[in-house]
């Protein structure tokens, strides 16, 4: 099962939840960090990284000697990644979205596929956890191509994980990168906090992810802070509250030391094991009703 942990707002505890779930999961599990702009899952799981490879995407390369400056490529390109200025054919690889349009329309075969660097993809292991992350190179503007590449790289996990359970730590927010991460999941766990910002961004997250069609469940982190609006919303929207993590300074301090809640406090291990069971129920196509907290 593919479970994505997401949230509208950053800093609600997505990584904390993903890491803790991975650590208490019964049996082998995959843990994938899709927050390629700011990956931090590895800081908590501390995997032994056994391979890092470049992630590249296809861009056109021009052979000027064959170019007749007909401008067919510049006309189809929606992204200004290829242009004819005067008598010179110019490509701007960092603007390219990899659509292949210019390659398809060039009548002179003057363009051939080349590649540009997006960042890196790294594989690792932490006990029973198979780990995978992507890291965008600083200055690279687009994260969806790397997010897609990391999702594909899950194919390289050991077979029992590939056909078993994989947890994904999504990027925060609700725009293109987050939606790319949640797409095709079996379930999405939305982590929120019961503060006005958390509640507001949860509403955005539900608006963004509901159309993707997978079951949604809530984890309310820092419960006890803020107010109760989030709970009323959950009931009104039919969103199961899978668990509440109480607001506790000790959890925050443990987190600042790189420890997950599951590592720092014994009662948290039990809470996350319970959460793991409920997450599996959420993802399983069930004929019965959803349970409300």
């Amino acid at each position, binding site marked *: 099962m593919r479970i994505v942990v997401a949230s509208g707002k950053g800093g609600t505890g997505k990584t904390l939840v993903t890491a803790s779930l991975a650590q208490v999961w019964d049996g082998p599990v995959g843990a994938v960090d899709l927050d390629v702009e700011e990956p931090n899952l590895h800081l908590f799981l501390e995997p032994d990284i056994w391979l890092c490879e470049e992630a590249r995407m296809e861009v056109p390369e021009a052979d000027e000697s064959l170019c007749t400056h007909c401008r067919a490529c510049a006309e189809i390109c929606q992204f200004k990644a290829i242009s004819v200025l005067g008598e010179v054919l110019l490509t701007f690889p960092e603007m390219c979205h990899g659509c292949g349009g210019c390659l398809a329309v060039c009548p002179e075969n003057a363009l051939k596929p080349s590649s540009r660097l997006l960042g890196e993809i790294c594989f690792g292991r932490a006990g029973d956890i198979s780990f995978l992350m992507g890291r*965008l190179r600083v200055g690279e503007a687009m994260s969806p191509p790397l997010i897609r590449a990391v999702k594909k790289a899950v194919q390289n996990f050991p077979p029992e994980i590939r056909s078993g359970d994989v947890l994904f730590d999504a990027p925060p*927010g609700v725009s293109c990168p987050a939606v790319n991460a949640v797409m095709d999941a079996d379930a999405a766990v939305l982590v929120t906090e019961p503060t006005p910002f958390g509640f507001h961004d949860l509403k*955005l997250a539900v608006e963004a992810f509901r159309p993707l069609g997978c079951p949604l469940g809530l984890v309310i982190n820092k419960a006890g802070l803020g107010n109760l609006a989030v709970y009323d919303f959950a009931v009104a929207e039919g969103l199961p509250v899978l668990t509440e993590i109480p607001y506790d300074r000790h959890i925050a301090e443990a987190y*600042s030391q790189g420890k997950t809640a599951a590592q720092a406090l014994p009662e948290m291990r039990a809470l996350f094991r319970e959460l793991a069971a409920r997450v599996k129920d959420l993802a399983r196509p069930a004929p019965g009703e959803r349970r409300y907290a």
Partner: protein
Amino acid sequence: MHEVLIISGKGGTGKTTLTAAFAHLASNHVICDLDVDAPDMHLLLAPDVQASHDFISGNKAEIDPDKCTNCGLCLDHCRFEAVEQRGDVAWIDPLKCEGCKVCVHFCPTEAIAFPENHCGSWYVSNTRFGTLVHARLFPGQENSGRLVDLLRRQARELAEAGGKTLILSDGPPGLGCPVISSLSGVNLAVVVTEPTPSGVHDLGRVVELCRHFRADAGVIVNKYDLNIERTEEIEAYCREENLPVFARLAHDTIMTEAMVQGLAVTEFSTGPLSASIRQAWTRIESSLSSEEKQSKQTVGGAI
């Protein structure tokens, strides 16, 4: 006129809460919420919207089912898996459509339209702290930075028209296009960090990005008392890199209490956290005025 941007790399460090407090303390300014993906400033500023506009950017391909002959060419060409077969016609998933126009070009029956994409809205509003320029992208849209750019331009125009001397912006999270768009040409980026592994790790990447785009940077360490050791690590890094530390702020639930009341911390309380925030703002202001004294360049590129 100065432009100050509050960013954080990682989300949840307190960027928006601090920007609201600075908006309360500053004078003669225009406020900008550049986090168009998940904007939150309006929850504290209670904007009275004066003008609202559609934001149109890029295009999406749409198949007319009456003209589609199900030849499958669009499916063959699409590199983004956006085309699906539905019954005996093809359909394009707008969430996956990249707007590249390849299918439009190759469709033999011209069955594919390419309308402009209405991806969000932007607003100019009045608030008790001054004019606020803000926006919202609809969910799933490409957050390319163009909307950020548009908001900044609006803010600049309003500031010039109104004789304001400061643009104060709540920046987007992350390191991608939106942050890049918010950074170029900014006088000072205030980076809000926290003494956690993610906070330390991301601070380095954010500072690198600021340098890449030639913005001066300074740091605020929020929730410093959660981990004094890491705070000192951060401060040592700042000294090495010549980055001013504008404040160390203690972790205080009063931040949330103020938020629940819809108020900036400095409005809500006069306690120690508010005092630290006021001090931070004073330091930021004097950093801006000393930068002004330093850069008295001759105008133009004359030799």
